[in-house]
């Protein structure tokens, strides 16, 4: 099942990398199986749930619905790249402090989507968070504590600017 190999150069979590990928290789498989970045989670596999969300050039994308070769020349952020030298990102802190997860399976995707939101809008309202985050599914929390986590992180991040 191999098919032809394509060379890719990309930046992931701040590191320049190059590799060869199969033409039909999905980004999620490349991340999890080839780069060992298993923080990115697979669930619905059809771009509905957002568990596999990563940031590609700062934009939230579903890694189950992209080919690995599509990252050529681009910059990728996965959950493993969010903490700064072991210091948690404010979003990660707030998700812990405000009960933003339970089983934790949607959490990497949820936090990265929230990062994309706060990049676009550092001071979102409750309604704006709700609307933006609607792309991802959590089956445990009932969502409100995720919204509170994001608003709490946004406040921290605005203070630190």
């Amino acid at each position, binding site marked *: *099942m191999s098919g032809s190999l394509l060379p890719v150069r990309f930046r992931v979590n701040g590191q320049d990398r190059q590799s060869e990928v199969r033409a039909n290789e999905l980004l999620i498989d490349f991340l*999890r*199986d080839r780069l060992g*970045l*298993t*923080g*990115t*989670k*697979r*669930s*619905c*596999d*059809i771009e*509905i*749930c957002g*568990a596999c969300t990563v940031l590609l050039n700062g934009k939230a994308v579903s890694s189950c619905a992209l080919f690995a070769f599509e990252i050529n020349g681009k910059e990728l952020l*996965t*959950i*493993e790249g*969010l*903490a700064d030298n072991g210091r*948690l990102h404010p*979003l*990660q802190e707030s*998700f*812990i*402090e*405000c*009960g933003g*997860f*339970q*089983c*934790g*399976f*949607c*959490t*990497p995707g949820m*936090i990265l989507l929230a990062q994309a939101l706060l990049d676009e809008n550092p001071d979102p*309202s*409750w*309604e704006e968070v*709700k*609307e933006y*985050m*609607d792309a991802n*599914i*959590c*089956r*445990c*929390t*009932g*969502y*409100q*504590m*995720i*919204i509170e986590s994001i608003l709490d992180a946004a406040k921290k991040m605005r203070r630190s600017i």
Partner: protein
Amino acid sequence: MRSAIGQNLHRIDGQEKVTGKGIYTGDLRPPGMVYGKVLRSLLPHARIRRIDSRQAESLPGVVAVLTRDNLRVASPLHGAYVKDQPVVALEKVRYVGDIVAAVAATEEGIAEEALKRIEVDYEELPAVFTVEEAMKEGAPLVHERFEGLKTSEYGSGGAHVVHENSNILLHFRYQRGAVEKGFGEADVVFEDTFFYPSAQHYPLESHISVALFEGESLTVWTSTQSPFPVRQELARVFGLPLSRVRVIVPYVGGGYGAKSGIKTEALAASLSRLAGRPVQLAFSADEIFKTICQPRAKLTIKTGVKKDGAFVARRCEVYLNGGAYANSGPSATEKAGYRAHGPYRIPHVLTDSYHVYTNTVPGGAFRGFGGPQAAFAYESHLDMIAHRLKMDPVELRMKNLLDRGEDYAAGDTPIDCDLKGGLQRIAEAIGWGQKVEANPHPSLSLEGRGLKVRVEGLKGSRIKRGKGIACGVKDGGGTNKPANAMVKILSDGSVLLSSGSVEIGQGMRTAFLQIVAEELSVAPDKIQVAELDTQYTPFDKGTNASSATSVMGQAVLRAARDAREQLLAAAASLLETQASEVELNDGKLFFKSKSLSFREVMRLHYAETEGEIVGRGFFKVPRNDKVPLGYSSPFWEIGFGAAEVEVDEMTGEVRIVKYVSLTDAGKMIHPLHCRGQDEGAALFGMGLTLFEEIVYKDGQMVNPNLVDYRLPRFRDLPELFTTQILEEEGGPGPYGAKGMGEGGILAVAPAVCNAVYDATGVRIREVPLRGERVWKALTEGKGDEGSGRG
């Protein structure tokens, strides 16, 4: 030292889960691992004449092909209640999705290709899909015989009615008083029928296992809620001693009941034995729909009432469509039956509850375990009675609700919290009796929450608003659970807690750590919670039924107290006094002016040899023959709800605008996590109420994916959604704690349907409230009147 109880500690799995470092089963890559895939039946009911897998075996990269022809096991069948489910299909397949064969290959794509090369020759059999079809005289039997059926252990009032040669696997009967006499004493009798959907748990992490057979030893890493029962079943299937089966549970990405009992484990193990390598078997998102579901329910309730609204007699009939294999469906059936009459004072009750096999996806445990189905029926029915009697539904509930300390059923644990007080609280929170207003909750700040003031524009419009209330109660779980825990104090003074409860997201590891911190008066960061590995972890029956804190919590508390006593005794001999004279505080042991740290006690007590203190705790709910189910309910889990809805009369669309959920935690060990449990449960209930439903056409499930089966999203949040958690300290758990996490579902469907009635005057007896269903009901006419007889 500040008490650890009631503190919102940072959850101990937090750091790993927010950084992506937490290991779930699917993240494991043992050397040489290959990938498993399964072949599923496309027919609902068929005899297998022949399977030819030679073409699959010869495909390069395929390392194992498993069919009934090479399934060499001690016992091919497994099941929690009855041994009815084979590892792979034996003589026949019983539903669309039943597993016929499995393949392991070096790549997933190769395994998929191999499946296409397996030829199966079937002889199609007549099938039954609904309870009605399955219970017809002469209906085709899904199972011709019941092997290893669990014997019923009912106490007084409970009975098992046996049906030979039938698709009825379990018929549970509960009775008290004389129901016909009761109906005779009533002034008026009402009867109504309700339907609750089959639904999918959809934990974001699907069923997945990695298995490794080495010689006569089996290790399985798996996403399960019940590691010890899984070990038991694997040992039985493969004919191994329990000591040679090791089940390890990494983080579990949600369960909600779906991950109780064997799912991927036996198949992965069989493939590994054939392949001689570790095998990962991960079900895909559509396969999870074909594995287990919530059984669809039909419930009929008939109530005899006095003119003043007092209930006299109630007759309940409950039918659960159990699908092709039982799982723990029969236990859910018992519970649905026992819960069907509700938390009301009713002298005469007769309930029959049936678990019926059909050729559909197996049913089983689902968050609430029969409770939500029952509560939907009895709380909708109660509202209907109130409207027929021209009474206020809250008043009718107040009249009949049980008091704290009153019996739910003779001999069972008395009601352990103030139900009427809870009802008053939610009624107040939703502004019961007040007209629908823009913001009837001046005490609740809505600032920044964007509550749109649309109500002014509603006059004469097609959007109708209404309010509804419901009170659900379920008996607490964990009655079958021998819970063991171990608390070790190590030679450096640090503490290690080990228990068989699974961290499935509920935060139980953090709560248990808080209990140990409290009992040993030691800082939480001195305590570690061990990973779950059946080789080392003390036994537990499973993490289900809101039983971790309430039942296992008691074992943890006892283990911590056992360790504490040993530590005090060791310190006393060092301090040359009695243990009762030694004071324990903030990680230190005091006697008069002298003090020792944990580390000093351990070092001095054990000297150079080193050593550790091992504290053990055990708890099991005792057998009680006076109780219908054979065991007293450890506690009563309550789920009250008040909803305000908008109904679009032109489209039938229903929106929950406000929702207030109320439960009683007894005592909150970790308030933030308690809130998360209740909100999560309530939103689960909203999904089931508004749109979640598994749909079949001619025996084929038509919506096994997240496009056609919609889960609740952020957009489905009500504009006002609050949860009130009482602490009435009536629970059996540590410091009065009760179980929670399921209660929040109970009231949603009836509260919302009662609100829809309030808004439109139309009664809906079946959820989910999909637009076309509501619209149809709206066009068919109004009123709860009728169907009563004097």
